[in-house]
Each structure stands twice: as C-alpha cells, then as structure tokens.
C-alpha cells in the first residue's frame, strides 16, 4: 500500500531509527519530511499534506498534541481527509490512558518493531477504508482529537473558583478588567489579547494557562488561540465549505471557529 508520512521527533537518532524501521516494515510508505519540533511539524504537514503523522509528545516549543490540534484546525476546508496520527512517547501514564480512551494509536519508546508493525497495520486498515470526500472519516478523526484535548492531558483547575478579574498592565497602571466584561481572549505568541467592548489589553500569560481558570460554561474555546464569552456571541454563520464564523454583540470583530469546535454551533 502506498502512503505518505511525516515524522516529528526532536532526538536525531530516534528520528533516523523510526524512519529506518518504518521503511523496513512498510516499503510503500514515503517519509515526506522528518522534523525536530512542533512548529515545523505543523508547517510541513500543511505544506506537504501527508496521510500519516508520527508525533513525539514532548518536543521543544509545541507538544505533539498541540501540533496535532493546529494541523487539524488549519487543514484546508477542501474535503480532503485529515492525516492519521500515531503518537510516540517515552513515558507518560496520563497520556497513555487518554490515548486508549480516544482510540488513538501510539507507540512507546524504545520502539519495538512488533508494536510498530501492529500500528502500521491499523493505519493501513484505516487508510484503506477511506474513500474520497468521506465526511465520516474527517468527523471520526476530529472526534478522537476532541476527546484527547478534553481529557486529563490538559491541566484543569482542580476545583479552584473561576477568575473574576484580569489584571492587565498598561505602562505603570494596572487595569482591573472584570472577566464578565471580556468579549474574547486571543493568543498572541507569549501574550493573550483581552478584548472588551471598549478597548483591548495585553496580558503576559499563555492562553493555555489562562484557560483552566475560566468558567467553562461561560467561556467557550472556539479555536486553539481563541476563547469567547458565550453570551457575547450574536450569530454563527456556516459557509458552503462548512467553516463557521461568529459575530459579536456590540463589537465589529468576526471570529473564525475551527473545525474542532464547530460542532458546538447547532440550532437547539
């Protein structure tokens, strides 16, 4: 069976070895790229559109899971199937549980050829079942990823009360911004933009650290980089390609919803 794959692994020896093992096990598999960190994995996956991704979990910059999310979100809306993901990890009991629950394939390092062969067979079966323009395949891949993202892999605020005010510095002044007035949060590199009806603020924290402190009923994640207050949303519009765009009450910005979160916007 012919297929294309990308390997993301930050340790050079292990990347070379995985490539060699894969070529021995699956001669029809073409490794289109081997990259050493998460950002490169996203960029190369979107450029080369491989059918299969081997993602190391712990990588510099972006984790394998974050890379998988970014790839799924930015994959073009042209009906092409999302790549099948196989995670690679040395040791992470929490991740393994999550993978099992979401029925996502993984291999443990050191990679055992028998286990890798098994994973390859499963991937081949998934790819063989796929037909062109198969919406079900995309949806099931998204479902797995959603479940992974929602599982214990991400830090959850353990019963802590949700944040009430955001303390944002503008010059020497600290502005106390009530969370209830925030329309949406947007990740901007190592910062988060905090947008209210009147103005916007910049706080020096990562969105992934802010997210667990927000009330999940009120604040909905709609993209890896965007969290919106649900009662600030005026309309959700779905275009022909299936892409959902939100308009807000009292603010002209339009927000794009990634395909991972688009299922939230359905008529009641």
């Amino acid at each position, binding site marked *: 069976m012919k297929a294309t794959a990308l390997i993301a692994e930050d340790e050079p020896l292990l990347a070379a070895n995985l490539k060699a093992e894969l070529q021995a096990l699956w001669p029809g598999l073409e490794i289109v790229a081997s990259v050493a960190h998460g950002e490169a994995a996203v960029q190369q996956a979107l450029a080369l559109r491989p059918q299969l991704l081997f993602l190391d979990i712990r990588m510099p910059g972006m984790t394998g899971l974050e890379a998988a999310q970014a790839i799924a979100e930015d994959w073009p809306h042209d009906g092409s199937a999302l790549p099948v993901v196989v995670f690679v990890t040395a040791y992470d009991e929490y991740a393994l549980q999550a993978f099992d629950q979401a029925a996502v394939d993984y291999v443990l390092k050191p*990679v055992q050829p028998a286990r890798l062969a098994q994973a390859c067979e499963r991937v081949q079966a998934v790819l063989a079942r796929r037909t062109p323009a198969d919406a079900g395949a995309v949806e099931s891949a998204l479902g797995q990823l959603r479940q992974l993202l929602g599982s214990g892999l991400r830090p959850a605020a353990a019963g802590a009360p949700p944040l009430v005010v955001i303390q944002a510095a503008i010059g020497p002044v600290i502005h106390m911004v009530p969370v209830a007035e925030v329309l949406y949060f947007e990740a901007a590199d190592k910062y988060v933009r905090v947008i209210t009806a009147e103005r916007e603020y910049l706080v020096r924290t990562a969105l992934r*650290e802010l997210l667990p402190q927000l009330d999940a009923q009120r604040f909905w994640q709609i993209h890896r980089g965007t969290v919106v207050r649900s009662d600030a949303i005026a309309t959700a519009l779905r275009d022909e390609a299936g892409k959902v765009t939100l308009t807000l009450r009292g603010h002209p910005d339009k927000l794009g919803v990634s395909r991972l979160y688009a299922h939230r916007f359905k008529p009641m």
Partner: protein
Amino acid sequence: MRPIPHNPSMPTPTEAPALRPGDFLRHGLIVAGFNTFLGLVLALNREGPWHVQMVYAQSIGLSIWALMDFGRLLVRIDPETGWPAGWRRIALQGSSILAGYVLGSSFADLLYDRPLLEMWRASPRSVLSYLLICIAVSGAISFFFYARGKDQMRLRQLAAAQRDAAENQLKLLESQLEPHMLFNTLANLRVLIALDPPRAQLMLDRLIAFLRATLSASRAPWHPLSAEFERVQDYLALMQVRMGERLQPVLDLPAELADRPVPPLLLQPLVENAIKHGLEPHVEGGRLRVSARREGDQLVLRVRDTGAGLPADPAEVPAEGTRFGLSQVRRRLATLYGEAAAFELAPAPDAEGGALATIRLPWSPAA
C-alpha cells in the same frame, strides 16, 4: 495532577479533628466508672443508705465532667492537644470543678427532697472534705485526659512525619531516575547498538555510572567536587546523545578546587532543571555551563543555561517536579550548612538570556 509538594521539615498538621465525639463519650464513661468506685468507698465509710453516697458521687462527678469536657467547645483550644493552653486550661478545670460541685450536689439535694445546700450550713467541715476529695479526684482525671490528648497528638505527628519521609524518599528517587529520561536514553541506546556498537558501549557505561551514583548518593555524606563534576559529565554525555547539537555543555572546574568536599549529586537537580526547563523546550537549544569558583571564604557553584529562561511571574509556572528538585536542594543545604549556605535561581544577568542557578557553600564546612 500530582499531589502538591510539601515541606517535610514541617510535618503537615494532622487531619484528625481536635475534638471527636467518641472522646466525649469515652471520657464520660471513664468518669462514671470512677464515680461508682468513689461512691462505694464513701458509702462504706458513712452511715445511712448506700445509694445516697452513690447518687451524690455520680451527680457531682458527671456535672464536673460535662462542664469541663463540653466547656472545651466554648473556649479556644489548642488543636494539637484538644485542650485550652496554659492558664485557660487551669481556669476551665478549676471553675468546672467548683461549679460542678455546687450544681451536682444541688441536683442530688433535689432528688432526695432536701433543702438546697443544707449541708453547707449544717456541716461546713464535711462540705470542705467532700470538696477536697472532689478536687483531688477531678484534678487527677482531667490531667489524665489532658496527658492522653497530648500523647495521641504526638503519635499522630510521628505517623505523619514518617509518612512524609517515606513519600519524600520515593519522590526523590523518582525525580532522580526520571522515567522519561530513562526510557528515552534506552531508546537511543537501542538504536546505537545496531548503528555504532563502540559508541553504544560508551553510552551504556555512562548510564551505568549515572545509575550507580544516583542509587548510592544517599550513602556517603560527602565526595570530592571532581567526583561531582564526573557525575554531571555522565549525565550530560547521555543527554548529548539525545539532544545532539542542541546541547553544548561546558564544565569548568579549576584544578585547585577538585578535592573540595561537597554533598553528592547536589548539582544534579540543577543541571536536570536547566535542561528540562531551559534547553529542551527551547527549539534552538543552547549552552549549559557548570562552574566552580572560590570567592573569598565561599565555594561558589553555578549552573547556567542559555535556554528558555524563567517565567515572568516566579509563582506561576515552575512545574511540580522542578519545585520539588529545588526545594530538595534548599533543604539539603539547610540541613548540612544551616545559614552558612545559600541557593538562588535567577534570570541570567546578561544579554544571552536563560537562567542562572548559584549555590554558595562555606569554604570550610567543618568550621
């Protein structure tokens, strides 16, 4: 999420509540037992029906017990013993004994239809003798309860301290033999065996030295600084196979410092930290410099990386594992050197960025 690390030098407060309902019941039963005994002794010595002495003894004894035991609910008690501290305890016990005596004897007077406090007028001498017996007995019993409460508290503290110590030992071992590091190293080794057997042997030798040092670190209190640097070298060699170009280590140990005694694997958590939080997450990697210097009457050890740097708000990010590693370093320094040693983790002071960890030890630790 992993449990919050805590400091074992301060045993965690015991979870058991200071006042447990079972204790009140147990105290009451013990008091009733004493009353019975006392009532019998008094009945044998006096004229009249035996049950009178018994009723008076129970009535007075239980009144004192109720006032004293439940009185603890009204005053501020020491959560560790279950009793008020210092003069408050004396005041509670003294006033309970007096009030309990008056209350208990009046209650018994009512039962036997005697005019209230008749005996106080008729025979102050015998009232005084009863009161003295009463004070002696109640005083002894309440002291017994107090001592028992204190004892149980000590046992609970001891158990908690032992649990903490065991837990810390386990966490220390886990942090030193970090499974992620171990399995990744083994994965590299597995590849090298086929690719480059001599290099695989070298790597295996490093791993063996690292494991041996880690597992026996707690056995010897000191080793020379040169040995400490060799252990760091083993670890860095393992990490270099994994990280390749992204890790550029520099070890700087002046020859005249090679024999200085240091606690084994003191630098290990700092080096691991610099890699795990500084260089590994940093896409470009960077340099790691471990150095030793004599500065006045101090031996100064530094671990510096040019990696991702420290989080802006020191309270927010350092992950569980790191905080444990760092608190472990602080604790060891405090145990071995007291105030004479210092540890600091700060942003590196130059343009290259990254973090700088500094340990200052007294030049002559024996002094």
